[in-house]
């Protein structure tokens, strides 16, 4: 599975209240959530993300609450993949479960610049910075997690499994 997009950079400890503030959580519409993604630190983000971007962040991305609305807002804003030095665990699981590719890659946050064109080969954990002509490696995801992402999320994966059980 290959994903690509321009890099959008963020720092350390980007928490879920920043990604989607609690006042918007009364909405169940992911497109509505997407309009407010990152607004408290970067109001232009939803507009910039529309063309399809890859977030490159520092440590502990997605810390804070368990709100799945956070990765949902990013996915529907146009984020194709998130790369970070490290992730908060609930956010990491949530992203996988909604089918949003996510990779832990130490040493990338200082090396990739805003706007760099990135191509990511998920199965190999390979990040290609086409602007700079450099290649970075990320932690590879276990096979069953890759399968969940490839199926489009945990529910799609589960429905597929239930169907094959019945047949």
């Amino acid at each position, binding site marked *: 599975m290959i994903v690509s997009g321009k890099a959008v950079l963020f720092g*350390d*400890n980007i*928490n879920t*209240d*920043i990604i989607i*503030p*609690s*006042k918007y*959580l*009364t*909405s*169940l519409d992911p497109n509505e959530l997407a309009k407010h993604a990152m607004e*408290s*630190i970067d109001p232009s983000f939803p507009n910039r993300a529309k063309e399809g971007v890859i977030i490159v962040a520092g*440590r*502990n991305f997605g*810390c*804070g*609450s*368990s*709100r*799945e*609305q956070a990765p949902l807002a990013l996915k529907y804003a146009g984020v194709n993949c998130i790369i970070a030095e*490290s*992730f*908060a*665990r*609930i956010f990491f*699981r*949530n992203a996988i*479960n*909604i089918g949003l590719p996510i990779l832990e890659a130490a040493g990338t946050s200082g090396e990739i610049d805003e706007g760099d064109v990135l191509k990511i080969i998920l199965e190999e954990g390979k990040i290609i910075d086409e602007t700079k002509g450099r290649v970075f490696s990320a932690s590879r995801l*276990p096979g*069953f997690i890759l399968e969940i992402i490839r199926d489009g*999320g*945990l*529910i799609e994966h*589960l*429905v597929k499994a*239930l169907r094959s059980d019945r047949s």
Partner: protein
Amino acid sequence: MNICEKILAASSGTKCVEPGDIIEAKVDVAMINEITGPLAIQTFKKIGLDKVWDNKRIVLVLDHQVPADSVRSAELHKIMRVFAKEQNIPFLCDVGDGGICHQVMVEKGHVMPGYLIVGADSHTCTYGALGAFATGIGSTEMAAVFATGKIWLKVPSTIKINVTGRFGDFVTPKDLILDVIGKIGADGAIYKAIEFTGPAIREMSISGRLTLCNMAVEMGAKTGIIEPDEKAVQYVKERTDGIFRIFRSDPDAKYERTLDFNVDDLEPMVACPHSVDNVKPVKSVENVEINQAFLGSCTNGRLEDLELAARIMRGRRVKKGVRMIVTPASSEVYFHALLNGTLEIFIKSGAIVCNPTCGACFGGHMGLLASGEVCVSSSNRNFIGRMGSPEAEIYLASPATVAASAVTGKITDPRRLLEVGA
């Protein structure tokens, strides 16, 4: 094995697990609230199953925005009520019959030692105070748990925190956990478990232990846990006649590392804006003027917290220009604080007492902040925008520090305020 490993081994039907193992575990109890629940319910319906795996192992709590503060909230509450009815789920804690989910879960006997509990709320780790392995998950994952009763987990490595010494007057478990978070860092325990142990933990009340485990997630931890002792067992037995297993860490159990803390000389601590690990002694920020003091949340909204704050507020007034908001964590806490006169002290001092809810802590309703305002709060997160305006500032502190600051109008070391008439 340590206690976490033993619970995970038992819940996955194996004899032995090690950190890094990926297991499929059976869930004992699953909890949702009205912020994460409706999305889980919607997602569960997409799977196409008629019934949840076990209607008696699911708890639904309305807490974040109760009573409904808007039509949109009311609609979310409705989704929860309809689902409880459709699925014949007996445990729906509605307005007037509960409070903040984590308080309700322990108070109503849904948490037992040795249980594996998942909740669609990050502070689910609170239940470790009673010797359960409990962790927060998202809505989609919860939908899968509703369908299968199972979840995959990676067995975490464990950090042991050994606590000795005696707390001084007006120095609390909250000050200890803030000190711990300041030292370990907001990402210092990602994917790990934290086991609290030592003589100071054994001395500590269940209320204090709940505060410690509650904030484990603020270091990124998967859970915080304390070996259940007689105090924990008694607390549970007063609330349920369910059968449970006690797990204890073996003497030769393995830990990633052990950290020692002594609370003899611990002083009141505060987490300064905008990060939970930006921790300093209260006395170093005593010149900071405040607009709001918030006493509540799943971290510090229990009876013991309210009583401690009332010891300081008794016979005193909230400083003019400051608003003090008291939000008991549950109906049970509210009731006891009403009966024993604690709430009367708050009201006489000029504080307002709200109904049990997450309220101001979550930035949903009942005490949001305007731009440029400063709040000292007994809650758990001081992120930008957490309690309202992104231009507001939040200082996290103990109930005693919150009360003392409400009285003086500035962040104040509670030890400066001797009790009136004491």
